[in-house]
């Protein structure tokens, strides 16, 4: 009854439905309360996995192949922890944000609940088909959230996103079908010993299709085209959820599949993935340097930061350094990007404008928010002491131990590019405010949630031992 694995999926479904019935006001309170419980559950799971190793949970007592299995190991425990830890402050933020922007609120809470249920289920799913279902659930809820604002630009962005999400799931599903045809099973556990480098062509094609679909959903360069308008155009709490969490879900899937089931095939694609990651870092940063809009800058920064995650693949090796780097980067970026979008939302609310130029002098009005933006920036630049720095350190170390110099240059150069675009925002703070500028008051809770998220991304850099130990925990 108290097994956190099942409740982590059920609880968001419950409050999503509840919020739909109760309406936004009481729905928000319900959601925040439930998210507190979810945080505790994720923490409990993490502690248990750390102590006893991973485990499988047969839903309703029916094991595979008849029923559905849920599996939790170190990697999924870490991701679940990240998801709940992001969702709770963002829910607090969203409650204040939508009190200011009433029209979009109606569908936010139910959609957010379904999104979270989908994400939690994805981190726990133990077979390829359930992964597809959760992927679809996440995609549709996310598209809904982008469109919920209802402006023409948002709907256009949502349609683009919908197309990318559906095409991605379709490619993935095609791959799953081919795998089922070849081996007669979709369970990860059963598949793992069957797939090897001498697998038939159909399996190779399946792997390629699944990878392509997931890359489309992760928005890795050159599949990133849908991300900036969708993330840059959505309401701030939605952007934060999408950039910090949703793209990580499909990345998690690529990582998970290339770690066990497709490990024998993954080596073939590793270098290509790494190169795409490098290209994403350069292109995303370059675009972030050129845009004039705060949220577009943050969205392009997501394109760039996702690139670091893909640098992990060519460096995956038994020493586990690269996996640690990937996990650390996913968490650090998640926290920092959520903080950054939250802060950007506050800045836009305070100035009433969405451009960088409009920020001049804003430091005097919302100093805490700007500080939060700066702290999140420190993580993105990979400067110490922050989670982003540890991720970068591990990546460089992994690259050096493998003697792969090129990746070192990419990581270092990417950090400098990130500094360039982050300071485009921060330097505005020190300019003097024009005489005619007017500032709107902003709820304190929004400022503080942005700050808490940013501070967490930095403090992560002071203690990563337990997280790394958890990440190293495989299935028992």
């Amino acid at each position, binding site marked *: 009854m108290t097994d956190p694995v099942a409740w982590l999926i059920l609880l968001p479904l419950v409050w999503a439905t509840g919020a739909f019935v109760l309406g936004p006001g009481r729905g928000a309170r319900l959601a925040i309360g439930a998210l507190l419980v979810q945080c505790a559950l994720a923490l409990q799971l993490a502690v248990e996995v750390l102590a006893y190793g991973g485990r499988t949970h047969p839903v309703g007592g029916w094991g595979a192949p008849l029923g559905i299995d849920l599996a939790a190991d170190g990697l999924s425990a870490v991701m679940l922890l990240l998801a709940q830890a992001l969702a709770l402050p963002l829910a607090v933020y969203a409650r204040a944000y939508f009190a200011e922007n009433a029209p979009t609120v109606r569908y936010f809470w139910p959609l957010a609940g379904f999104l979270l249920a989908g994400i939690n289920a994805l981190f726990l799913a133990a077979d390829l088909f359930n992964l597809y279902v959760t992927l679809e659930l996440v995609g549709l809820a996310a598209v809904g959230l982008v469109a919920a604002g209802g402006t023409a630009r948002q709907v256009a962005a949502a349609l683009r996103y919908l197309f990318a999400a559906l095409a991605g799931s379709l490619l993935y599903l095609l791959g799953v079908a081919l795998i089922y045809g070849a081996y007669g099973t979709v369970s990860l556990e059963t598949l793992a010993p069957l797939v090897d480098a001498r697998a038939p062509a159909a399996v190779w094609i399946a792997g390629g299709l699944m990878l392509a679909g997931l890359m489309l959903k992760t928005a890795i360069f050159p599949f990133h085209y849908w991300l900036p308008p969708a993330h840059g155009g959505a309401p701030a709490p939605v952007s934060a959820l999408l950039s910090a969490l949703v793209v990580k879900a499909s990345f998690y899937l690529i990582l998970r599949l290339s770690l066990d089931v497709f490990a024998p095939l993954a080596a073939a694609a590793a270098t290509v993935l790494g190169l795409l990651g490098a290209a994403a870092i350069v292109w995303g940063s370059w675009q972030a340097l050129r845009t004039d809009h705060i949220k577009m800058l943050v969205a392009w920064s997501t394109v760039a930061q996702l690139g670091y995650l893909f640098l992990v693949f060519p460096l995956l090796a038994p020493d586990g350094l690269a996996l640690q780097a990937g996990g650390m980067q996913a968490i650090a970026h998640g926290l920092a990007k959520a903080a950054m979008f939250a802060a950007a939302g506050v800045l836009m609310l305070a100035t009433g404008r969405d451009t960088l130029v409009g920020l001049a002098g804003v430091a005097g009005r919302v100093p805490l928010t700007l500080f939060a933006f700066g702290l999140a920036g420190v993580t993105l630049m990979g400067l110490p002491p922050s989670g982003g720095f540890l991720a970068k350190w591990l990546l*460089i170390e992994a690259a*050096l131990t493998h003697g792969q110099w090129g990746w070192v240059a990419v990581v270092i150069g990417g950090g400098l590019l990130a500094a360039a675009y982050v300071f485009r925002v921060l330097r505005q703070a020190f300019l003097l405010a024009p005489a005619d500028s007017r500032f709107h008051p902003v709820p304190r809770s929004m400022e503080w949630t942005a700050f808490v998220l940013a501070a967490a991304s930095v403090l992560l850099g002071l203690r990563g*031992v337990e997280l*790394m130990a958890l990440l190293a925990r495989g299935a028992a």
Partner: protein
Amino acid sequence: MTLNEALPLAVLASSLAPGLIIFALPESRIRLRTALNLFGALAKLVLVGVLLAGVAAGEDYGFRHAVLPGLELVFKADALALLFVTLSALLWLFTTLYAIGYLEGSPHRSRFFGFFSLCVTATMGIAMAGNLFTFFVFYELLTLATFPLVVHRGTPQAMRGGTVYLAYTLGGGALLLTGIVWLHGLAGSADFAHGGYLSALGPDYDGQLQLVFLLLIAGLGVKAALVPLHGWLPRAMVAPAPVSALLHAVAVVKAGAFGVVRIVYEVYGVEFAQSLDLLTPLAVAAAVTIVWGSIRALFQDDLKKRLAFSTVSQVSYIVLGVALFGPLGTIGALVHLVHQGVMKITLFFCAGNYAETLGVHKVSEMDGAGRRMPWTSAAFTVAAFGMIGVPPLAGFVSKWYLGLGALEAGMPWVLAVLAASSLLNAAYFLPILHRLWFRSRDGAWPEEHIPARGGLETSPLLLAPPLVTAAAALAFGLLASSCASPLDWARLIADREYLSWSP
């Protein structure tokens, strides 16, 4: 946690905590802010005093904290660390007093003092870092904490200076990080140790180690303003005077120079560095910087720019001393770390006084300022003579030991560099002194902000700090051979450093 573990952390906390509280204070709480600042500075001095007594008696102070498996934050308050810690803690107190007077009535003071305290915290971390990872953490923190101070005024010129500063320092940080991670891969997570820890790797790694040394020195050379990486320093002159004092004397350039000291003595080990042929190129780079900085200083009319190029030149004395193989060069380098700080901070305080009191920013406007501001000008004169190396001032002691060190190391050409540099120092300082004392003023001052009142030439908070630091520059020279002088402490460090490997 034992007391010996807690003390280094307390030194960090004594500026971090006031800084964080100050950030949260509203602009109008002037008294509370001042009280916090002074309390932090004084508490730090008391703590440093305890540490000094303990280290002199042979105590070990240290703290370790694991960040990742195999990666630790290590703090270690050894004799070398305390040299830098004491210097910064003392100068922090005076710079804070000065800044309170300097910024009176200007906006954004909470932000200023908040970042100011963070800077000092970062400097303490750099000084007490027990391994390269810890050093790098605080080295980058220092970059981040100084940027808001450099651009404090918010003018387009300040923004440009700040951007150049960031570009240089973050670029240098990237090189440094590459070098540090590389070493971490080769030698694992090792602490700084007397005599270094790399010589055990074996001859197969010599080539790599030379390359890493180049990366590390290039990364540190940005902050230490080694030519050709010095471009940011003169441009950062747009910052307010207390920040310049901080950049030039207390924190930033010193952090770079101090890093070079740690790398040569406690990572590579001076003997091993010598056997890899690394010291001579380093000495040449330092010599070039010394001469080039002085030559550029000759042609600056802006007073602060002239002082900035003078810093470029003077800080490389430290690097030069490190590169001289032998204990006397080491003593010269370490003692100059302190002496340069005391003298240069005096000069910047005085430059700030001229600008704030009379609106004088240029050398060509300084005619007759000695009569209007005799005390400030006296302090300036003492510090300038010290920089030139006139006995019995502090600068003379540094140069004396550097000269002896050069002979000991068998590099007599260094003497020529020292002589040339002293001549150049005289050539750019003496004209200023001549204008101060021997030219008379005709016409009004450019912009007189603070009128002379009741025998005081300017506000007391602006006047006292340069007088104290100038007196220190005099005392450090006069009393160099007494116990508890910087020279004495530098000797102690050199003894401990060279004991470990001398036959």
